[in-house]
């Protein structure tokens, strides 16, 4: 079954993009979003993150940060990440503004806060299509290493879901199997478009 997947984290930079990258490479129909109000990237200190609006092209961020402090951003892996991202898509997108992107079948989030925001947003939308949407949350720490792991897990999970005609009847088994195999907690919820 050709499902549409959405990978969602807070800034649509690290975790969701890692997963997007992997799923895209596997030929799945995937998009990615962030639920934050802005795109935040580490800056020279915790107090001074680099803040961008959603929609700012990755390339632009890349160029800007490279100009600012190539050493720093290379060291913390930001430049590499942005480079990866700009090959995946143009710019970070915000989940709450994605109504025009059509309906998704499966949404993967990587943080409970994001999961809640996605559900809340879905509930606030007019639910008239009578189309189910599966929202899953896999807790992934927001760093490069964990994102790589999380991305891999997400892609495995989505591949498994993709193998079914519908996910409604099998999701329980898939989730149970995943939790057992990966020893990671996975929560899901169901909403409607």
């Amino acid at each position, binding site marked *: 079954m050709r499902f549409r997947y959405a990978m969602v984290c807070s800034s649509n930079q690290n975790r969701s993009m890692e997963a997007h990258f992997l799923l895209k490479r596997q030929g799945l129909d995937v998009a990615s979003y962030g639920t934050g109000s802005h795109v935040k990237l580490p800056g020279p200190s915790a107090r001074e993150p680099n803040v961008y609006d959603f929609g700012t092209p990755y390339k632009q961020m890349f160029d800007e940060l490279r100009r600012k402090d190539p050493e720093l951003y290379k*060291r913390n892996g930001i430049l590499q990440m942005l480079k990866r991202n700009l090959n995946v898509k143009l710019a970070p997108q915000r989940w709450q503004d994605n109504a025009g992107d059509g309906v998704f079948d499966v949404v993967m989030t990587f943080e409970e806060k994001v999961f809640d925001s996605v559900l809340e947003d879905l509930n606030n939308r007019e639910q008239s299509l*009578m189309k189910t949407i599966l929202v899953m949350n896999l807790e992934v720490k927001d760093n490069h290493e964990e994102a790589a792991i999380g991305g891999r897990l997400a892609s495995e999970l989505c591949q498994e879901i993709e193998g079914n005609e519908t996910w409604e009847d099998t999701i329980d088994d898939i989730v149970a199997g995943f939790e057992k195999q990966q020893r990671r907690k996975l929560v899901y919820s169901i909403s409607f478009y």
Partner: protein
Amino acid sequence: MVGAIMASSSYSRGKLQGLARSAKSATDLPPKLHRLRNLRRNLQGEASVFPAELLPLLFDLLSDQFGAARKFVAEILGEIGLNDVELLPEIVPLFIKSLQDDTPAVVRQVIASASALFPSTLHKFALQGLHSSELDELLQSSWTWMLKFKDEICSLAFKQGNSGVKLCAIKFVQALILLYTPDPSVSLESQDFNISILRGGHPVLNIGDLSIEASQKLASLLDQLRHPAAKSLNSSTIIFLINSLSSVAKKRPAYCGRILPVLLSLDAPSFLKGVHAAAANLALKTVFLSCLECTHPAAAPWKDRLIGALKEIEGGSRAEKAEDLFYATNGSIQDKDCVEDTKFQVSVEQNSLRANSVVAESNFGRKRSGSEYNIDLNGDALTGKRSRITPSVSGESTEGLNGNSVGSLPLVTSTSTGPSNSRGVSDTGPVQQLVAMFGALVAQGEKAIGSLEILISSISADLLADVVMANMHNILLNSSSYADGTDELVMNMSIVGSDAQIKYPPSFVAGVLSLSTAFPPVAALINPHTPKTENEGEELCVHHVDQPIFPSVDAVLASGLSASSVNEEGNIELPPNVDYRGNIESGIPGLDSSAQRYVLSEAPFTSVLGSTNVEAASKNQDTSASGELLLAVIPSVSVDKSEEFSPKATGIGSYSLVSSTATSLASAPQFVLPKISAPVVNLSDEEKDSLQKLVFLRIVEAYKQVSMSGGSQLRFSLLAHLGVEFPSELDPWKMLQEHILSDYLSHEGHELTVRVLYRLYGEAEAEQDFFSSTTAASAYESFLVAVAEALRDSFPPSDKSLSKLLGDSPFLPKSVLKLLESFCCPESGDKVEKDLPSGDRVTQGLSAVWSLILTRPGIRNDCLKIALQSAVHPLEEIRMKAIRLVANKLYSLSFITQQIEEFAKDKLFSVVSCISSERGGPETLSNDCVKPVSGAGMDSSLEATSVTEAQRCLSLYFALCTKKHALFVHVFSIYKDASDPVKQAIHRQIPILVRTMGSSSELLKIIADPPNGSENLLMQVLQTLTEAAKPSLELIHTIRKLFDTRIKDVEIIFPILPFMPRDDVLRVFPHMVSLPMEKFQVALSRVLQGPSQSGPVLSPSEVLIAIHSIDPARDGIPLKQITDACNTCFAQRQTFTQQVLAGVLNQLVQQIPLPMLFMRTVLQAIGAFPALSDFIMEILSRLVSKQIWKYPKLWVGFLKCAQSTQPQSYKVLLQLPPTQLGNALTKISSLRAPLAAHASQPDIQSSLPRSTLAVLGLVPDSQGTQTSQVQASETQESQVQASETQESQVQASETQESQVQASETQESQVQASETQESQMQASETQEGQGKQQASESQEQTSPSQQVSVPLSHSETDHNQETSQVVASHSQSSPIATGRSETSQSQSSPIGAGQSEVSQTTQVSDSDPPLAPTSHTQTSDSQPDNEKMEEDTATSENERSEVDKSKESSAEEEEEE
């Protein structure tokens, strides 16, 4: 025109039909779908009425074979139905049928269509009914069908089936419930459809009935979640049910009361096993949280339980958040102690129409507004509530102020709009909750009457009474704050501490008040000397060091703002910098009673506390202006109570008047002013930064004081925390590093660094967002590296600071490990040389690595890698250090033993494969191979490098071998394939290694079974083992066994030769002789050397004798080797001295038969030691008596010897029997003349027998008969002897000992026949044993004795014994006796001389033989026999010569 439309219409109709038909006829799915899509597009584009004739075609398609097509058709039909309600009666029945479709997707599509159709139909139906009493029949039937359709779908929701379908059906039910119930959030005027429009009256639809149905449906949904039913559901359904119900609860809060109990009692884990409980819990949590935000009264009673349930779900972790949220929602912080305040608030809030929860939630208003108006000494949450009064006031009095003041306090205005109607619930007490609830309901006006009634009826009478009582408090205030009492209240409040009321219009006062009730510029206005007062106050207040700094900063801001705002009023000109000056240094005044008077004017600079002081002071001044203790008054005075306002106001007012009239600062410093809040002033970034920097530096620099006062722990934490918080432009870490490194020890650098590191590590590891953790991680790394590098550079390597730091850091990033690696394995050689104390550096690094390996399992492998790399470092110094660490310390750690071993083994094996391949050609160089050697063409350098390279790789392994001897076997096994450089390297290290190992059992095992090709190595090992200490018996045994079984090379036993038993050595002696000369020399020296304590294994003479006893034929050793061995011995004159040789010869001469090389040795001895000539003569004469002429080979040698030793040998020669003398003289004719000359000396000639003289030609030959007679008798004798010996042969069975020394008594017997020599030997056997003992004792006594000629005495004794034995022996044999008698009888006819001889023989047989001289006598007494003897001898000689021709020929060749 019309026609054209008609035409296009008909055309399109036809086209549509065609499309539908072709879609129907299409057999494949893709074209079918394509056509359907076209059809749909056309239908959507078609503005005109739907062609009814198309429907049957579509209905047919609804039972198409393809599920996808059916689904698509259902979608199209749904859209058609949406446009054309009239068609529904036709469409819906088919839809109902399709609900039974096998393909879930079709069913879902049908439900989806239904969920669009149903509301729209309802809408149309309701509107039509509202506007006209007549209902369209078609519409009515459509509606009827829709109802049926709905019921069908609802039934799907409550029965088992496909999850997807069921979810859709549930969703449909949810939508239905919402549809059937009025939406409270949508007003009647709204465009959206709301069921409440039916209130207007509808012929068919009844809003009550619909509500009932909705309620029933809700009940069904809820029932699904109730206990038994829920068990049969799968978790996705449960989750969705929860979500669905939550959305109902949210959108229809009225249902909260029904839904929440079910959800709250839903004990997810009890029916959801394991994993999905989490998801269900999460869903529940979301519901609960959203319900908490719900402001509907129906939800209110559940809030406590919701919080409890959330706590349970979250395990308390997020319950606090929930509580916060709850209270934030309610707009204030709970304070159970302030019931009155709450009442007051509620009353105020009742006036505000709508809750603005967003604003209410912004609790940041709490602090500001609190400081503005708050009078609470404890600084608790009261402030939040107080603030609410102000806004309502200020809102009304704003016009009196200019906009500036309002703008400066946006919070105030925002709160004014924000009193929430739920705020009253802020108190957890049920009474307060209810009061709030009532308030909220009342606020809704008429609408809520119903709810109010329900609420009232549902609570108990007692509770209701309490509520009423509680509410009574609000009534008064309510009236005063509401309606036109506002101004009054405002004025009341503004009176506090000022006479403003008098001077200014109330509106302005209110404005001032809203800005801030305490306002320094106002005070300044009243009393222009305020600044000075401030200064005084400042002096006094400097002592308040215990006050935090920040409040004063706030105060600065406050004053700054207030000053400016007042400036705008134009009433006062107070430079803001005055305020700054006054505040930067000062703490918070106010608590100090002595400062009270002066402090009062500074009230604005203080925060919460200060504001209280104003109150307190004002009261204070009421009673006594002399400055009573403030503390006595401090207990909070509530401003809220209006009855307190007026007296105070008057009092203060009066005071203010006084103060304003005061002209002298000193005399009238007491004045009270209302205090003003501390609004925020935005500093520029630079200012902030510099401020922060100053603060930071100050803390940094305060180390002395801090450490003295014992607060350094706090200081560390503070610095670490500030470092994290500060923006990076300030580079707090850099500052800190500089401080730490400027004096690491006295600045407690270690502790501080570790604290910082832990803080950063915690920051990096915390589950925070991406950037802060990344930043912290990089800060961590750079900090640690910077400190570590600085420590390395500034401290001597012996210092332990660095390793302590590494050990204490929470985590070691790669860069630090790299640093460590650079310690342990410096990159290139020249670098090391530059850095002189690098050796210590290595030690430092290694010891750090060691401790890390011990204490940090996490990075154990990395550290071990460093240590191991260091252990194969090209520089020997470093390598040795590392190896010591690895082998001595690390290797014994069980958890890494294996790894170390593997590594060493790899290196060992790589060295073989690598270096050998390297030699083969540079192109085969493998990667892990040792560093490539400079030039491939330069063989010598290659060789040298290879050796060191090999050593580099091997050292570690060898070191491990000393710890675990079994590993050594691999060295043996690689040895065979190892290239020369490797072998060389191995050989270099073996001695040290083996010496360390000693002959352990493992090593013995290896030695016992060495791999092929490792002989050389084995040799070296053995050599080393035996060099150091006496080898153990096991070792000797092992080697012997090895020699016996596997390795035939005698060299293998060289090392143990000195330690072997003598017999064993003698047994292997022939093997040694067969070795090349050099090796024999080695062996010889070993044998002769022996272990120091017990002396040599063999004495030199024994060695020589052993050489002589080798039989070339028997031992298979070429004669040449034996002679070479002899030569070797002779070459060593220090060892084989004259005495030794004499002793050897003395012993050899006694052997029977004489050793083959005897004469050769004699000759050599003479050549080597001419001084031995006398002794040699003795030997020669003994040989004569042993009838040396019978050994042709030796005879030649004898003669040579005689020739070379003339003239001494004359005497010996003359002893020869005449025949042999003649033989000798014919062989060496040159002797004749000198000998004759010698014999012709009168005294000699007289002693010589005639026959001898005859041979010499000194007398004519006349006595031939006699001689022959003698000869004959001798022959007979010898025959007898022969027979005798034959028998004795029988008796004497043992023949081993060859070293039999011929006794002189036997000589006569021996003389009997040469042929008997072997038999003789046999007969002598028994005696030989005795003799051997004797000879041994002789040996031991002294070799010199043997040498001296007179030694014959002792020999004589022996011989006596021996002969006795022989005699008894012969006697014991009767046959022999008989024979001898016979011989006697036979001999008798011959003659007297003969009998004489026989007698003599007998005598010599029985009696002790005479000394050598007696021989001469005997021979003297037989002059007549000579000739005969000569004849027989000759004949016998010939015979024996034939016998021995083979041997002798060979020997003669040798002689030549």
